C-alpha cells in the first residue's frame, strides 16, 4: 500500500487502535455517528465541521486510509527532507494544511469563501450575545481586509496571503503525530 504520508508504523498502530475504538460496530468504516459519539466534540464550536471534513463529498463512511490521511495533515512538517518536486505535495505541508483549513470554510467547494459561508463560521465561533449586525460587520471587514480582487469572496490564494505571517506549522500540528 502506498503511504506517502510519512506516518510511522507506530503511529499507524495507535491510530488503528483508535479507529477500532470509534468503530463500535466493527464495520471497518466510520460513520458520522461514530464521530458524534465523541461528546467532547459537541463542545467544540466547529466540531461538526471537522467531522464533515473527514467525509469526502458523496461518501458516507470513512475508511482507515482516509482517517489516517486526514489526521496526517496535522503532523509537523518534516524540515529535514527537502521537498522533492517530483513527488506529490506531502499531506502535512503548509499548502496542504491551508487547504484543509480553507475547506472548513468553503462547504460548497466552489473554491471561494463567500460572505455567507464566512458568516456561518463566525456565527458558530462567537458567543450568542453578538447581534446579527455586529456579525455582518465583522464579516464585511474581514473580507475587505483579505479580498484583493474585490469579488466579495476570499479565494484560496487570498486566504493563503492573509495568513502568510502565521506559523501554520505550529498552529496546525499536534504532537502525537510527531
Amino acid at each position, binding site marked *: 500500500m502506498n503511504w506517502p504520508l510519512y506516518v510511522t508504523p507506530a503511529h499507524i498502530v495507535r491510530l488503528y487502535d483508535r479507529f477500532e475504538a470509534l468503530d463500535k460496530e466493527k464495520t471497518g468504516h466510520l460513520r458520522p455517528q461514530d464521530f458524534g459519539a465523541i461528546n467532547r466534540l459537541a463542545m467544540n464550536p466547529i466540531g461538526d465541521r471537522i467531522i464533515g471534513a473527514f467525509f469526502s463529498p458523496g461518501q458516507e463512511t470513512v475508511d482507515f486510509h482516509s482517517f489516517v490521511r486526514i489526521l496526517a495533515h496535522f503532523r509537523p512538517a518534516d524540515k529535514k527532507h527537502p521537498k522533492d518536486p517530483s513527488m506529490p505535495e506531502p499531506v502535512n505541508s503548509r499548502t496542504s494544511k491551508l487547504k484543509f483549513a480553507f475547506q472548513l470554510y468553503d462547504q460548497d467547494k466552489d473554491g471561494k469563501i463567500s460572505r455567507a459561508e464566512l458568516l456561518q463560521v463566525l456565527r458558530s465561533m*462567537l458567543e450568542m450575545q453578538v447581534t446579527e449586525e*455586529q456579525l455582518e460587520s465583522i464579516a464585511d471587514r474581514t473580507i475587505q481586509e483579505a479580498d484583493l480582487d474585490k469579488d466579495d469572496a476570499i479565494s484560496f490564494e487570498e486566504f493563503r496571503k492573509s495568513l502568510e505571517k502565521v506559523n501554520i506549522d505550529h498552529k496546525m500540528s499536534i504532537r502525537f503525530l510527531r
Partner: protein
Amino acid sequence: MACRTCLWLLGTTFFTCTVRLVVEGTEVGATQESHPEPGVVGSNHSQAGGGHGSSISGIQIVTFKWHHVEAPYLIALWILVAGVSKMVVELNHSLTSVIPESALLIIIGWILGGIIYGADKMQTFTLTPTVFFFYLLPQVILDAGYFMPNKLFFSNMGAILVYAVIGTCWNAATVGLGLWGCWLGGAMGDIDIGLLQFLLFGSLIAAVDPVAVIAVFEEVHVNEVLFIMVFGESLLNDGVTVVLFNVFDAFVSLGGAEIDAVEIIKGIISFFVVAFGGSLVGIIFALLISLLTRCTKNIQIIEPGFIFILGYLSYLTAEMLSLSAILSIVFCGICCQKYINANMDERSVTTVRYVMKVLANGSETIIFVFLGISAIDPAVWVWNTGFILLTLLFIFVFRFIGVFLLTWILNKYRLVPLEFIDQVVMSYGGLRGAVAYGLVAMLDENKFKEKNLMVSTTLIVVYFTVMLQGITMKPLVTWLKVKRAAVTELTLAEKIQNRTFDHMLVAIEDISGQIGHNYMRDKWHNFEERWLCWFLMKPSARKSRDYIFNIFHQLNLKDAMSYVKEGERRGSLAFVRNETKADVDFNKKFRASFSEIMPDIMADNMGPDHVPLSSILQDIVPSVCLDMHEQDLTMRESEDFNAHHLLQQHLYRGRKQHRHRYSRSHLETNRDENEVQEIFQRTMRSRLESFKSAKMGVAPAKKIQTKHQKKDKPQKMPNGNSSDKSKNHPYGDKDFEFSEGDGGSGGEAAGDLFPMRAYRVEAGIVNPAFMAEMDPMDNMQQIPHVALLPQTLNSFDT
C-alpha cells in the same frame, strides 16, 4: 475604618497578654522568670494584680474565673484575631492584587508576634506541630480533595505522579547532597551535622506545599492543566515526604553504621506501603461516607456533619497506622465527592460546600498568621549565612532543573505537551510552606543538635517562597506571556483564523484520542456504572443522573407541545409538512403559555453538578426558531463598535485557554463552564434541528450541506456505554440511560426513533395521524450531522 480595626487588633493582643500575665501573677506570685515588668501595660497589671492579692472572706458576687475558661478562651480569641487580620488584609484590594494575601497575613503575624514578644519577652504562642498537623491541616486538605476536579486530576495522574514522586526525591537528594558537599567544603563553618541529617533536611524542605500553592495560584490564573499539575503534585508528594522523613529519622537514630542494604530496601518498601496504604484508608473512608449518606434520609439536618467527622477520622486513622495522612484525606475527598453530592439533599450539599470553605479558609489564615508569629522568637534563631543562602539557592535551582528534566521526558509521551512558559511557572510555583515548618519543628533536639538552624532556615525558605515568589509570580507570568505574543496587531482574518486553529486542534486531538488511556478509563467506567453506583448511591439519585437526557427530553417535550398547540390552532398538523422552514416562531405567539410549562421543568432535579436546569431552559425558549433577532437593535446606533474589539470579547475561548476551576474562596461556576454549556447547547440544537427537519422531509434552513444520496438505515444503538474518550464531560460522570419514567430500559432503543418515543410516550397528546406520516423515511436525504445526534445522546459518558 482601617485605623479602628487596627486599634482593635492591637487592643485584642494587649488584652490577651494582660490576661495571661494576670493569670501568672496570681498563680506564681512574685517569681522572677515568668513575670517581667512589661513597660506598656504596667499600670493595668498592678491594679489587677492588687485586686487578686487579698484573701477571700465572704461571698463573691462576681469572680474572675480565668482559669476556668483559659484554654478555650485563648483558642477562640486567636481564631478571632486571625479572622480580623484577614479582614484587615482584604480592606485594600489594590494591595492584595499585588501582594498575595498569604504574604500579608505573614506580615501581620510578624507584627502580632512582635507585640506579644514585647509584652511577654518570650514567644508564648507558636505554631506547634501538634496543633498544626491535627487541628489546622486536615480541613485544608479535605477541602482540596472534595473540590478536586476529578477528571482533570486523573487524566493527568501520570504526570502528577512523576513530579510528585520522582521530582520530590530528586529535590530531596540534590538539596541534601548539595548541602552536604558544601559543608564538607567548609562553606558553612563548624556545625554539628552529618550526611543523614542533611538528607533529612533536604527531604522535608523539598516538598511543595499545598496550602502555599493554593494561596498564590489563587491570584495568578493559569490554565487548568498547569494548575492541576502543581496542585496535584503538592498533595501527592506527602507520601514521599512522610516516608523520607521517617526513614531518615530512623537512620539518624540508628547511626550511620547500622545502615545496610536491608534497611534501604525496607525504606523503599515502606514508601509503597505508606503511599498505597494511606490512599487505601482514604478510599475505605470514602466508601463509608457514601454508604452512610445513602441512609441518612431521615436525619438530613445533621448529614453534613458526617462528612467532616469521617474525613477527619480518615486522617487520624492513617496517622495512627503511620501511613500518609494527607494522602488518606485527599483520596477520601476525591472519591466520595460524586456519591455524596448525589445522595445528599440539596441543602446538605450546599452546607457541606460552604462549611468546607469556611474551615479551610479559616485554617489557612490561622496557619499563615502563626507562621509569622513563630518567627518572632529569638530563641530559635540561629544564623548561618552559608547554610541559609545555599539552601535557598539549591531549592530554587534544583527545582528548575528537576521540572525541566522531567517535563522533557514527559513531553515525549504526552499528547498535549507542556510548554516552556508552563514549565517556568511550575518551577517557580514550587512553594514551600507550613508543612515543612511543621516537620522541622517535630525534630528531636537531642538527635539534631542543629535543630534551631534548620528551623530558622525553614522559616526563611518559607518566607522567601511565599512572599517573594508569591509577589513576583504574577508579573513574571504576565511578562513571559507578553514577551511571546506578537508585536504587531493582527488582522481580523488572522485573529479569526488563529481561534479557528485552536478549535481545530482541540477537535483533532479529541478525534485522535489519547490512545492507551481510553481502554482503562472505559473499563473503570463500566465497573463504576455497574457496581459502585448501585452500591453507593441512592436509587433516586441514580435515576436523576441522566441530566443531559433530561434537558434533551424537556427540549423535545416543549417542541412537541408547541407543535401540537399550533396544530390545534390551525386545525391540523399538516402545516408542518408545508412550511418551508422547519421551525415556526412559536415563541412570539405562545410565550405566555410557556411560562406554565417552565415552572414544572424548573422544579426538576438539578443535576449532580448543580447547574440549574432553569438557566439552560430559559435559553431555549427564544430559540424554538433558529432566527436570533431577539437582540437589542438600538445597540448599533448607540455604540461605535470595533470589529477587533468584538472579536476580542466574544470569540469562544476554546479548551486550551480554560482556567482552573479550583478556588479557595469562590464557589460559583466560572465563565468557561458557561461557555462550554453554550457551545454544547448550540451544537445539540443545530443537530436536533437538522435531525428534525430531515425527519419531516423539509429542507433544513440555513445549512449549506453536501448532498448525500444514501438511504438511512435504522441504526441499532449500542448499549449506553461508550468507549470514548480523551477528556470528560463537564456535567459529570454519567452514562446515558434511556430510562423512561416507569423504569429503566437500557439503551437498546433505535436512535432514529428517539424523538418519536418522546412524543409517543411522554407527551401523550400527539395526533396519531401525524405520527403515521413520519414513518416512511427511506428516501430521505441523509445529512451527516443529522445522524450525529442520536449517537451522541445515546453514548454520553465521560
